[in-house]
């Protein structure tokens, strides 16, 4: 479904990604794990078209998307919930959700129905529809960010650190919901600091170090790999 091929991305003359290749198949949950500054967010930004790769290519459903602007990539069904949540603090919760559905041409009723479906996953979001999103708590903002991305009916959903800064119980909930979303047919590419949790729910994972993919395997394999345990799971 998504194929990243020898991707190289620079900020000015700093190489942030040197040689990143990986693949996400339909129906999978794939994790990218790695230390701070390894290049995980940069990878997601390049996939979404926010950064232009210096070389390499990105294919979504067998079509190169490397040269497309971000909003056209969204139209193809590839959505990202960015690092830091990216909610529009000056809009209400409901308006944020409407922005998630921006590209859809579906009828109001259908969109409303999908919204109800999203509320079933995130009941808290429904309680706060009229509230200005900037006044939500951190956890609520994260739930809104994911709800909003789901409103776009993604085929592939990129999640950049959905558990960042959340209390342990909420982290648990978020990971359960990710699994649920996946079981409903959404393919997921997940970037996480919380490597243990991420590996547990992932089919496969890639380990990124300073702009290179250094290791890959099944989630369950990496979870018990001594190298991964030492570097990312605290021994």
């Amino acid at each position: 479904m998504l194929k990243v091929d020898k991707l190289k991305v620079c900020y000015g003359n700093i190489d942030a990604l040197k040689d990143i290749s990986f693949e996400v198949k339909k129906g999978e949950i794939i994790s990218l794990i790695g230390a701070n500054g390894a290049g995980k967010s940069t990878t997601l930004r390049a996939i979404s078209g926010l950064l232009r790769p210096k070389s390499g290519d990105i294919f979504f459903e067998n079509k190169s998307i490397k040269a497309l602007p971000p909003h056209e990539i969204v139209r193809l069904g590839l959505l990202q919930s960015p690092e830091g949540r990216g909610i529009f603090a000056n809009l209400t919760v409901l308006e944020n959700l409407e922005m998630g559905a921006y590209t859809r041409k579906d009828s109001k009723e259908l969109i409303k129905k999908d919204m109800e479906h999203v509320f079933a996953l995130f009941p808290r979001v429904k309680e706060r529809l009229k509230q200005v999103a900037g006044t939500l708590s951190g956890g609520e903002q994260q739930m809104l960010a994911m709800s909003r991305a789901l409103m776009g009916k993604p085929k592939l959903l990129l999640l950049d650190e959905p558990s960042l800064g959340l209390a342990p119980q909420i982290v648990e909930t978020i990971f359960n919901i990710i699994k649920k979303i996946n079981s409903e047919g959404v393919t997921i590419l997940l970037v996480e600091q919380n490597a243990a949790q991420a590996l547990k729910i992932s089919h496969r994972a890639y380990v990124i170090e300073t702009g290179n993919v250094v290791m890959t395997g099944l989630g369950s394999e990496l979870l018990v790999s001594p190298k991964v345990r030492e570097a990312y799971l605290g021994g």
Partner: protein
Amino acid sequence: MEEFIQHLINGLSLGSIYALIALGYTMVYGILQLINFAHSDVYMMGAFIGLYSSRFLGIQEKPGLLSFISVLFISMVGCSIVGFLIERLAYRPLRGAPKLNALITAIGVSLFLQYSGQIVFGATPQSFPNILEDADLLALGGVHLTLFDVTIFMTTLSLMLILRYIINSTKLGKAMRAVSYNGQWASLMGIPVNKIISMTFIIGSALAAAGGILVGMKYPKIEPLMGTMIGLKAFVAAVLGGIGNISGAVLGAMIMGIAEEFVVGYGASTYRDALAFGILILILLFRPAGILGKLNVEKV
């Protein structure tokens, strides 16, 4: 008392005109953090499009509501195109470049419009056609409420209500607010940011055109440099209200208009233009974010 009410009427009328122009500054600033210096010249273009279109339509001396509305409409459409082209040709290629580059370009576009205006329209002031006949609607003692005042006020009010509807309740308006909060995030939701920016210029320019027509009617001499002073005042009004803030621009403009009328009315007309700068200095000293503006506080 009568004098006071008269000044208030004049002030609201002047403030309405400032508001129409201030909105364009504030909307563009809100979305691009760019002070669009060329905006005051779009307003000037609005007045000239009004002049030429009424000649072309042969209604330059056929005053009436229909003439007024047709000229207003044509000028708004014309300026929308001008505003669209300015953004497309001058500012868009610089997106991503340092903000200062865009600012200098804005000054360049402004000068370009002013001096091509002098070449094309001529530098001598021209009379604006009589598209609406002024009359006293109400004369109570010394207080006069003229048809022009009411027209200016009603036109502004209707345009503001339309604008408010667009910003608050339409998909376009919500997208505009999303882009002004964070363009990258907006693009991740599939919002075509460039298109939204174009629409912002189109709307702001159309409002400025209305300002140009109303000023042409009320102070019926127009010339290619007419935008400079009024543009500066409208800009100060936008800063006073809190640049980037829509209601702030209207509030700031009304305060400016009323303050100016009172300064003139109570004998200090030499200070008419100095007032704007006085206000600007005071805000920068005491409340740099403006009356309704918030200094950027972001929640992490």
